[in-house]
């Protein structure tokens, strides 16, 4: 079983207030630390578990600037057999362009694989399109929001995908296929700093993304960045704890849910 896993290095923005530069020209990420996209971490763990069980090889691939090597080293430390960087100026913003580059890379370099794993979405752009778009170009079967892999069979895999309202769908897909993996599918193992240091000794291959971009340009353009529209704000109850609590109980009473 050979699995390709696509990984993205993203800004760690959860605890930050993001600043927009100038008149909406760009988002300032200069003070933010970077990390592996959370969803991709689950995808990577799931791929490694699959080959630990079924045998085979995980190849971690990242599209982006040279710093994306960080996530490849981490992947190797976690258990991937190989790390590959498709080097570009930056991670391509247009989901179409990104998937086209990845698909051409896979075809041109002649990878032999049973499955491609991606995270459901990236924390930064939240397009949630990479796996699906790639599967579409490659004309491979696709399942998204996978929350469990139940069985690797001969030429197929049985998975569960997450729907709304706690409902799940059981799906059988033939291999090779593309699966996008949802968070919570597993508990990713810890990767230590010393593990990453050891992994650094394994060479990561670098391919130039320009090799796969001939005749294709970005199909979307950001004209402006803006802050979310401020909705009519909430009525703020008093700042002292006791006053706020008493007013809160009064509201609950008025609404008829609490005496």
């Amino acid at each position, binding site marked *: 079983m050979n699995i390709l896993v696509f990984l993205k290095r993203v800004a760690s923005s959860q605890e930050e207030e993001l600043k927009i530069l100038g008149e909406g020209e760009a988002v300032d990420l200069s003070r933010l630390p970077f990390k592996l996209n959370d969803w991709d971490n689950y995808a990577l763990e799931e791929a490694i578990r699959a080959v630990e069980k079924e045998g085979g090889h995980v190849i971690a691939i990242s599209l982006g600037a040279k710093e994306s090597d960080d996530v490849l080293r981490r992947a190797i430390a976690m258990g991937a057999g190989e790390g590959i960087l498709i080097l570009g100026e930056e991670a391509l913003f247009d989901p179409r362009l990104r998937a086209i580059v990845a698909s051409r890379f896979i075809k041109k370099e002649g990878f032999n694989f049973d499955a491609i794993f991606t995270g459901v979405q990236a924390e930064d752009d939240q397009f949630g399109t990479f796996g699906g*778009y790639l599967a*579409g170009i490659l004309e491979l079967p696709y399942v998204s929001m996978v929350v469990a892999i139940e069985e690797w069979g001969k030429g197929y895999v049985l998975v569960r995908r997450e729907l709304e309202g706690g409902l799940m769908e059981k799906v059988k897909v033939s291999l090779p296929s593309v699966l996008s993996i949802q968070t919570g599918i597993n508990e990713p193992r810890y990767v230590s700093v010393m593990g990453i240091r050891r992994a650094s000794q394994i060479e990561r291959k670098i391919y130039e993304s320009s090799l796969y971009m001939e005749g294709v340009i970005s199909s979307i353009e950001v004209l402006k960045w803006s802050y979310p529209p401020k909705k009519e704000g909430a009525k703020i109850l008093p700042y002292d704890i006791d006053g706020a609590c008493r007013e809160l109980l009064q509201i609950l009473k008025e609404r008829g849910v609490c005496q």
Partner: protein
Amino acid sequence: MSYGLIMADVRRGLFDERNLDLVGFCNVLNIDPWLILPKGAYNVREAYFKRIIQVEMGEEEFINPLNAVITVKKVIEKFGDPFALIFSASSSGMEIAPYVAGYLKSPIITDVSGYQKESGTLLKSLYSDKVFASLKIKGEGFFVITVRSGSFRHEAREIEENTIYEKLEGLTRDERRRFLGYIEEEKQEVDITKADFLLSIGRGVGTKDEIPLYEELASLLGATISGSRPVIDKKWLPKSRQVGTSGKTVKPKVYLAMGISGAFQHVSGMKDSECIIAVNKDPEAPIFQYAHYGIIADMHKIRDRLIQILREK
């Protein structure tokens, strides 16, 4: 007039209200809303649509992305290119839209929540709603989008002329992906979608040790306890108590959100509650934009004081 091809958001025989956002989107762009539907009796308000194309496929086949490609190709072959292929940003749309787009190599933008007429740009959220991008689609041909639930439904209008009905037959099936069945979450004692009063706790709760005291508060208040994804992921509350995109959508009389920052995935599951009260120590937390009442304070302090007051009663 060019048309917007809407792939119906259907699940288990229900035509989701989210479809109205797709109609509203077409109306805003001034294109004709066309709907493609699977076989079956769906509760569709037909007057919204210029054309309704019923596909000779069962629902599960229809929402299989591999078959969706076959359907869309057939529609385009028969009627020519649409202006846009439109899906809802739901578990179905999020799966089908990029797949179809990839197959047709079309531009795609997901989770669109606004349109600016003057610049012809689509508004999309990034970084969990911390910033928005105004995006312009370049080049020829149609594009694919998914539309955020709740963002365009107020624009949905009925058309004046009669709806045209079509049937689409003779479609092949892609057998490489097969639906085997639905799995319900384990039977649960409490249904949070039926509760009038939810006390919902989020990431701000901090540790598992704090949970019992929130359960006590819920019981003193007569509320049902629920949570946002981080709390469920840590298994501090069962999955059946999760509010949000990947959990339950709730509309209680009162939704008391404590320590919930208000990430979109959560908000989309509770924003239609009659009264939202948010307790959060961060005055900038997005939840306050959705709340009717807000308390800017440490959730544990509010909890402790409420418990104290209620015990004294």
